[in-house]
């Protein structure tokens, strides 16, 4: 994995290794390499600019100038900057205590992985000792209710559904009643996939938000998403308001630049990653791992520390 980018950066600094003088050109060349690598990883162009500017500032400071190996030092700065952009500390769900009912609203584009992630989330909460309820509020996609029911059965978590329902708000209200009677402490609401530019569908989501007053509004986004990740996240955040992001399908070979775009644009923490189709394939988000992947550098920190 220590591929072209690391090589290019090392090349940019090669002639200055061990010297105390380092030219702007060295840094510019290295920055150009970073920029291209991030774009190829699908980081949005505007986000790339922001990231690169922040990196240059730091790279031109004392640390790189004085270091024995400026190339390695630069790589470390880029990596650390990436980790801080992605969110230094790991962020769990923020839910109310088990004596009251918390709600998690899952939202996102069609096919992003909402239904699957709802079940994954339920399994995780169940293992933590909570009592989750899956609520089938996608009344549009053929067999969406059935899909959620099958998954709920697999993980042995209750599911609330209403046969023939057409109003998701009404389903939610029914679910809340049921939850109260059955000692449920966490509601996980699966919703219909929708484009952020589909106004009527966005309004439906607003209504669902209003009535459920969720503790978490999680954008479920595909890690393979390209440049439009920024438009998607911005619109969902502005129109509905997000508390966090779940990134799915990280078991693909995508570099996953969407992670950086989503975080930078919304400022909302990346909370979980989906790494497969099974209910167990769900992990907390680790910024350092994803940083190395976006940069195509593997485990940079240990590389630099060894150097």
């Amino acid at each position, binding site marked *: 994995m220590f591929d072209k980018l690391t090589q290019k950066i090392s090349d940019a600094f090669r002639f200055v290794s061990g010297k105390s003088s380092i030219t702007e050109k060295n840094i510019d060349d290295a920055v150009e390499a970073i920029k291209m690598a991030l774009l190829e990883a*699908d980081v949005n162009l505007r986000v790339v600019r922001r990231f690169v500017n922040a990196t240059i500032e730091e790279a031109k400071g004392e640390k790189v100038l004085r270091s024995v190996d400026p190339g390695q030092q630069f790589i470390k700065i880029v990596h650390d900057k990436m980790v801080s952009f992605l969110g230094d500390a790991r962020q769990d769900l923020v839910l109310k205590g088990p004596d009251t009912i918390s709600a998690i609203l899952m939202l996102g584009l069609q096919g*992003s992985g909402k239904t699957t992630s709802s079940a994954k989330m339920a399994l995780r909460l169940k293992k933590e000792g909570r009592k989750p309820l899956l609520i089938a509020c996608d009344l549009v996609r053929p067999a969406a209710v*059935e*899909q959620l029911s099958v998954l709920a059965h697999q993980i042995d978590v209750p599911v609330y559904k209403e046969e023939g329902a057409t109003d998701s708000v009404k389903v939610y209200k029914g679910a809340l009643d049921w939850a109260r009677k059955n000692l449920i402490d966490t509601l996980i609401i699966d919703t219909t996939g929708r484009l952020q530019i589909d106004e009527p569908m966005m309004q439906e989501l607003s209504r669902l938000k209003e009535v459920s007053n969720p503790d978490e509004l999680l954008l479920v986004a*595909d890690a393979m998403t390209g440049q439009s990740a920024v438009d998607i996240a911005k619109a969902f955040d502005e129109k509905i308001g997000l508390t966090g992001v779940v990134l799915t*399908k990280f078991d693909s070979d995508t570099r996953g630049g969407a992670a950086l775009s989503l975080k930078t644009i919304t400022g909302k923490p990346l909370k979980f990653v989906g790494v497969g189709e099974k209910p167990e394939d769900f992990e907390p988000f680790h910024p350092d791992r994803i940083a190395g992947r976006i940069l195509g550098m593997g485990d940079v920190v240990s590389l630099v520390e060894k150097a």
Partner: protein
Amino acid sequence: MSVFSDKIKNFFGIGKTLSGEVFEDLTDLLVEGDFGAAGAYRLADELKDACKKEKVADGEGARKILAKLLEAMLLKAKKAVPPEGGGLAIILLLGVNGVGKTTTAAKLADKMRGEGKKPILAAGDTFRAAAIDQLKIHGERLGVRVVAHQHGGDPAAVVYDAVEAAQAGGGDVIIADTAGRMHTKSALVEELKKIDRIVESKAKDARYIKYLVLDATTGRNALAQAEIFHQAVSIDGVILTKFDSSAKGGVVFSLAEDLALPVIFLCTGEKYGDIKPFDSKTYAEEFSGLV
């Protein structure tokens, strides 16, 4: 059509004269359209040269040249195999998870029936929760026969049965759905090869067409998907879904240029009618904001 086209239109602007800055801005727009960074720089340079050579100095003229260059890229793809024609046809849809295979299968069934064919849907996704139900609901709504087995069954056997049903006079075009699978998971790609072998041996005389379904919101990873699936089962073309999203679909140009893969259909919504044949000229013109 999109905000993107508007942006391109604006910045080329009628009567605007071309400067170096314009070409830099164009590079940005291309990158933001998922065109790929390296490709964007290259294309902007090509455009600059072409404008110089043809003595074009105004925005409108440059935009027309851009459309031509983009169309030329698309024409590097191999010729599409037409799904029309006599005898039995088998259309296999494949792709990663959630891109729109099942929905597209239903759209194709509806389209074929409208063209006087007798389609059969094969529920080749026996893996995902309720995938069979999903296809059956489409089949019911459309009045199209669905050949299905149990959840967990062998997808190759489902397609085999669908071919038998067709050969017994039950239909003349099979549209086979498959489970979403990551191109990186070799066991799942092997399963796809097995379906492939069954079809090849069971329906030797049929026209067998394999379409890779790609989601327009996918970034550069679409290329990796195409490359690996193409290597495994040699696909005939691509169906691009969710083109009604805010994504610009710039990756299509790389598919044509790097892998010679043509796009066959463009899907623009969740309704059955939201599918249309892909046209290179229109796509290039739309991308460059001419229409």
